């Protein structure tokens, strides 16, 4: 085993790594555009609130996926299969944890730590949460 294909051999890089240099450059350029794009969209108040949120999220996802694929080489090939599965599991668990925590804490905060206005409204209207 020589060092020329070491990264492919150990499963870091995909097997067909002929264009890997251009992939790094492409990844960098796309990320740059995404970062600047999201920044100027927000700072320039270009869209309405909801559309802005959606676009920022989409841009961020694009950038994350691009970096996962082009920098971390997660997308393609057998070599990265185990890593991709582990990543998928991590995303699944993080999804449950974050979504679950937010749901639970929002619910708890509303019921257990209401603001003064919420308290008064509850007492006046006898309406539950």
């Amino acid at each position, binding site marked *: 085993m020589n060092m020329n294909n070491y990264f492919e051999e150990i499963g870091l890089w995909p097997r067909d790594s002929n264009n890997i240099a251009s992939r790094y450059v492409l990844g960098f350029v796309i990320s740059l555009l995404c970062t600047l794009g999201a920044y100027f969209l927000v700072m320039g108040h270009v869209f309405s609130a909801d559309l802005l949120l959606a676009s920022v999220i989409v841009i961020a996802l694009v950038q994350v996926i691009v970096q996962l694929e082009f920098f971390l080489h997660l997308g393609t090939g057998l070599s990265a299969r*185990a890593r991709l599965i582990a990543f998928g*599991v*991590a995303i699944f*668990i993080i999804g*449950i*944890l974050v979504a*679950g*925590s937010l*749901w*639970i*804490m929002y*619910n*708890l*905060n509303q*019921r*257990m*730590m209401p603001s003064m206005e919420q308290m008064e409204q509850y007492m006046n209207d006898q309406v539950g*949460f």
Partner: protein
Amino acid sequence: MTWNTFIFGNLSWSVFPTNAIAVGGGVFMVVAFVVVLALITYFKWWKSLWNNWLTSVDHKRIGIMYLIVATVMLVRGGADALLLRTQQATSVGASNGILSSNHFQQIFSAHGSIMIFFVAMGFMFGLINLVLPLQIGSRDVAFPFLNNTSFWLFAAGAVLINFSLIVGDFSAAGWLSYPPLSELAYSPTTGVDYWIWSLQIGGIGSLLSGINFLVTIVKKRCQGMTPMKMPMFVWTVLGSMSLVVFAFPILTATLALLWLDRTLGMHFFTAGGGGNMMMYVNLIWAWGHPEVYILVLPAFGIFSEVVAVFSGKKLAGYASMVGSVIAIVCLSWFVWLHHFFTMGAGADVNTFFGIMTAVIAIPTGVKIFNWIFTMYRGRIRFLTPMLWFMGFAVLFTIGGVAGVVLAEPAADYQLHNSLFLVAHFHTMIVSGVLFGYFAGFTYWFPKIFGFTLNERWGRRAFWAWLVGFILAFVPLYILGFMGATRRLDHYSASLGWQPLFIVAGIGTLIIALGFIFQLVQVVVSIRNRKAARDYSGDPWDGRTLEWSIPSPAPVYNFAVLPVVEARDAFWNTKQEGKSRETNFKDIRMPENSALGILIALFVFFFGFGAVWHMWWLASLGLLGSIVTVIARTFAEPEEYVISATEVALTESSLRDPSAAIAL
């Protein structure tokens, strides 16, 4: 800051305990430690201990060291239990029992923390270390040096929590240290800091072990062992370790946030300042629930092995068993709120988690049925491992349905934090986790040591544990229904609870007797080891690969790495009458290393310094551990070679009664 505060932090002469029981416990511990050191010195064992055990990267040696530390911690946790039971049996009406309130709180906090983090996790990692590489046909785990370091980090956490008995006090905020009680304002002493750091250090060790064993299963299985041919124990370890890798970082984060609150005055969970103490409960149980499945899954795996072998039949429903492990692993992420139904979430939230909790009982039920189906029409040998299973099957089912009762939020509003809950989780952990690990220890002991454990004392130990457990915890179920809450250090005589507490106390004494019987069993077995020597390597007529190698397992495990064709690979080999491989080759094994101990020692200094605010010590420890890690990366790992002739000689002499190898 004075020179004194800089050097000694918050240490002062008043940190030593003053009440009789704590002093007694501390003195006993120190004396026992000194006696052990003296014995090692007297027998001139230091060199051998260092070279063959402490610096070893051999998974079998590391496994034994885990078991020893876990057993020592079991003594401490068990002593705590005896004290708690005595207090609750005597502290009625006019009497205040034997412990002050604060001391009682420290003891139940220590009891829970020690039993979960150092006894259960220790036994688990010990058994996995001993057996996993043998079952997958591998020479060692994926990262032997990391294995050694993980053990020493675990030991460092154990030492730190033991220090709290002598120097300073321990947390009085329960085994999970809920804020705001655990915040600095209400727990101003070092107790909670000891809790934070011993768990944090042990937790890092656990996380590293989790990664190690996960990679071992994924990458180091022998040729031909596809996933659906792996032994059931390996499947459950895979499930458990994937939970470790993903759950322990939550604990790491949460402990760190609590420490930041206490030490740097932040406001994550404080009562004021914009903190949200409910978030702590949410986070800690997001870790805490997967943790209990981490502990019980390998025990389920052990039972799968034991029931199949001692029923003389293959495990029933292998595919559904695998499916149930995967289901348990997935579902364990969806239930954590059931630990705090009463914290005030709405009906929709509580219902979702209540339903998921009821659902997660189903895959466990699948397992129980499959074990029973395995026994059905089998040729059952009621040896000690099988007895532990039978005890488990009955008790765990009862405790499990108690859990399903608790899963219903409306019922839980009555039973939360009552003794019913305490009885439920002790039933699960003792009859599930502990009985499982005891069964595994008895089952695999001959593989590691070369002789079987004494059957008679094993039976006595089992019956003592079983009867003791029933006497100790059935009263608690009843008391829970009668309204008794947990962690009570005193109650009124008119409640009529005392007789039940006395029965529970007697039960605990019988459990202690059971533990003593286990120690006697080991001593008696060692004395009889020549008579009980097993030369076949297969004393139970086993089914899996570990029984194909000689006993005690040689350092390289397999002289020739096996090639597997079917499930229950060794059984398959025996049925086909295949002879053993003899084309031995040179085997390269990794050299020992002292760097793991060094890293853990520095980390211990860091922990102790952080607890007592001796920042120079903490910095030294941090720096030292980083430097040692970097030094390790610069060193090229060394190996030594076992020649083919040496392998041949070892293989033949281990199986030859006339070779008379000293055990």
